């Protein structure tokens, strides 16, 4: 088994404590958080341009959305405690907050839309990389 780094192990433990019991889901969310943390290296670029902030905002927004979605999906499948109403309220509240955040970023802050979309697309990049890795693993198992 591959040895995990300190940061990834810490994120894993945090996710496990917060109800992410399925390992694959935990891996996906952990990778997404790591990708978002990686975008923080763009911050020094803020002295020259404003788009790194938009990338960061998009990445944070995408990560929060993905985290909440993963939690809701697990709640729907393994609903053992709490009510469905609370789950649904959380889902719609998240969507509403995402809309408000995007409105503030685009209309008030006049963020670069391309940079914002790049940040939001990090979720897709994470999923595609995970899918490709899974596909390659399956192929190697079959061979």
């Amino acid at each position, binding site marked *: 088994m591959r040895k995990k780094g300190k940061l990834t192990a810490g994120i894993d433990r945090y996710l496990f404590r917060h109800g992410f019991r399925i390992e694959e*889901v935990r891996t996906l969310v952990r990778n997404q958080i790591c990708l978002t943390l990686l975008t923080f290296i763009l911050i020094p670029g803020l002295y020259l341009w404003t788009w790194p902030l938009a990338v960061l905002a998009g990445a944070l927004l995408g990560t929060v*959305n993905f985290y909440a*979605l993963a939690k809701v*999906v697990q709640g729907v*499948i393994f609903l053992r405690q709490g009510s469905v109403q609370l789950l649904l309220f959380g889902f719609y509240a998240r969507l509403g907050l995402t809309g408000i955040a*995007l*409105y503030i970023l685009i209309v008030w802050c006049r963020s670069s839309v391309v940079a914002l*979309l790049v940040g939001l697309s990090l979720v*897709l990049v994470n999923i595609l990389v995970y*899918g490709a890795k899974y596909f390659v693993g399956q192929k190697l198992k079959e061979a």
Partner: protein
Amino acid sequence: MRKGIMVVLSTIAMVAVSGVAFAADADPAVISMTSLATALGMALAAAGCGIGQGLGLKAACEGTARNPEASGKITVTMLVGLAMIESLAIYALVINLILLFANPFLG
């Protein structure tokens, strides 16, 4: 019926509010067409994403009910699918917000 009323009301609200967002010197025809495009774009995106997510959730629930041991793998696949579909809806929302409030073609 209730859903239909909700869609009509939200479309009317969007079209009504959009006038405030645009500058007064823009061509009214452009404003109305942009408002209509925004409402239609969001409605189509929401409908498509809703149908896709509903189908995915339905299949996942059926699969889990038939084979509860496979629920872990089904959950992962469903999460991946839902995230991809939802990101499409978010992209549509971004484009619609740009069209409505930060339209580059309206000066």
